[in-house]
């Protein structure tokens, strides 16, 4: 029975792929690709997301999974503020500062209590979400676009976590802290451009 259901699902997937090639490429896949590329090609967003993952891995359980769960939810709230046009002064500065602070936390091997780490990450998630939300395109592919950028953001966290797990070994710890320092410097450079 299970094998039959899986086979049927495989057939449906193949048919879906054919269908999207015929009719849905422009709206759904275009929106998804656009959303997916948004955090990846915005360097200020990308390095901050990597830093969230790095810091989570550095702090260990439960931060390693709480931060990637909390961030998208708080980011969505920031996104809602952006979509509704609620002004948030200094969003771009907040994004640059997020890279600098989060990078510094990793570089300095800071281990604050979990609630402090979650509050810091959550505050910056509002800035990132607001910036994304203000740029979300209205229209039929909004779900695909949102899915793309949430998945890209999560994937960057997971990349950061994967690299951050190297901190279990002495040489890896140096590499992770160096990466944190690099992110902090990048954040300061972004900040310098804005000021």
């Amino acid at each position, binding site marked *: 029975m*299970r094998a039959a*259901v*899986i086979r*049927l*699902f495989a057939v*449906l*997937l193949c*048919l*879906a792929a054919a*269908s*999207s090639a*015929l009719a*849905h490429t422009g709206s*759904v896949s275009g929106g*998804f690709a656009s959303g997916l590329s948004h955090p990846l090609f915005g360097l200020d967003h990308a390095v901050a997301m990597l830093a969230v993952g790095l810091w989570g891995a550095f702090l260990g359980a439960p931060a390693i*999974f709480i931060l*990637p*769960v*909390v*961030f*998208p*939810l708080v*980011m*969505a*709230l920031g*996104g*809602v503020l952006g*979509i*509704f*046009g609620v002004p948030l002064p200094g969003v771009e500065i907040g994004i640059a500062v997020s890279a600098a602070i989060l990078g510094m936390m990793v570089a300095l091997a800071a281990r604050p209590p979990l609630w402090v780490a979650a509050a810091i990450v959550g505050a910056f998630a509002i800035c990132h979400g607001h910036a994304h*939300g203000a740029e*979300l395109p*209205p*229209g039929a*592919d*909004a*779900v*695909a676009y*949102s*899915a793309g950028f*949430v*998945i890209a953001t*999560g994937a960057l966290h997971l990349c950061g976590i994967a690299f951050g797990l190297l901190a279990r070994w002495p040489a890896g710890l140096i590499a992770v802290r160096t990466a944190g320092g690099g992110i902090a410097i990048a954040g300061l450079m972004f900040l310098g451009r804005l000021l």
Partner: protein
Amino acid sequence: MTALSAGLLHPLVVPAHVLAIAALALLIGQQGWGRGVPVAYGVAVLIGLGAIALAYVPKFTEETLLAFAAIIGLLVALARPLPQGPGVLLAAAIGLSLALDSPPEALALMQANLTLLGTALGAVLLLLALLQGTARLRHHWQRIGARILGSWVAAIAILVLALRLVG
């Protein structure tokens, strides 16, 4: 493409539908609920499609579906044990709103009915197929992965709902 295959593919090619069904599959797998929950979903899909066949045209169906997807995503992210009763209600709500959001484009009665039949099959098969995966998420890291996916689903649904309210 025939009317039946167009209906079969409908739940697979509409992102909001995929999102809602995936969220429900994650929650059922995480909670380890019995067959009553998927059955409630299937019955609700049939009731919703029956209402469409009787020319009922509801409004704001995608928004309703996304709202339930957001709730289910949050429940997956929280990962608190829940009794099966609310699960049956949530599954029925997802099934009903998904079906009501699937009106066929065909004008001919026979074609429209075939599309509705295909939609019912596609919606139920997609959930059953996803349940084959989510019911096996037993390792600690797999459960963490499910919670992360739940938070992604909730975030996507919340953002799109906000866009719909503004637009």
